[in-house]
């Protein structure tokens, strides 16, 4: 059989806002997929009783978990806003070049603001728990 067509060869594209917002959405999705085992780990710990949960909370509050949670917060805000942009596109709206360029910047701005808000609330929640 002849070789089937392959997709995407990242190296042949110029980095423009279209490519950047798209690949960032994929990276954010990958990061959130890593958050799924983390969520299940926490749920299992809660189901395992007070001791198991206390042990899990000690693991989850290790200093090296900080960058992981920061990445997850960024990934969550970006994937959420970029995903809503995709859903709008699916209705056939906002596909003109001007509109898509504007929504790209909107997604970047809104997701950064949302990430800061979530990080601030997480910090408040962490301070409250101490």
């Amino acid at each position, binding site marked *: *059989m002849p070789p089937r067509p*392959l997709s995407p060869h990242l190296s042949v594209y110029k980095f423009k806002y279209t490519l950047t917002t798209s690949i960032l959405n994929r990276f954010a999705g990958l990061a959130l997929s890593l958050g*799924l085992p983390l969520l299940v780990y926490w749920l299992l710990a*809660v189901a395992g*009783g*007070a001791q198991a*949960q206390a042990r899990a909370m000690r693991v989850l509050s290790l200093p090296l978990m900080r960058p992981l949670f920061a990445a997850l917060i960024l990934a*969550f805000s970006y994937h959420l806003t970029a995903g809503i942009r*995709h859903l709008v596109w699916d209705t056939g709206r906002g596909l003109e070049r001007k509109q898509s360029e504007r929504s790209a910047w909107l997604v970047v701005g809104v997701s950064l603001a949302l990430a800061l808000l979530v990080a601030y609330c997480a910090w408040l929640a962490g301070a409250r*728990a101490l």
Partner: protein
Amino acid sequence: MSLRSPLGKVLGTGSAKQGVHHWWAQRLTSVALVPLSVWFVVSLLSLPSHDHATVVAWMGQSWTALLLVLLVLVGAWHSQLGLRVVVEDYVHGAPVRTVTLVLLMFAHVLLAGAGVVAVLRVALGAAP
């Protein structure tokens, strides 16, 4: 009259009539995850503390348990759909790709099942 060549028919290449299913499932799960994920983040961050008693009391409410079960199931489904496309794009060679896809599917079903069992154990009061 079919425009497909006899060779094409024999090789079985071409549409399997399932092209839209993946796309549609991805849209459905993403629409569901917008409220589910926002609800989860907001309620997790507004808990007064994250110690065992508080979390168990929170998970013991029927609404919380239901939404958590949905979050785990729909989240795992959406994650499986997304990772599948990444593997199909970047993992070349049929044996490696097939094995990766099977492992991804098994891992997601395992995670989803474990998450649901954990939530139900707490919600039904079976957690120690």
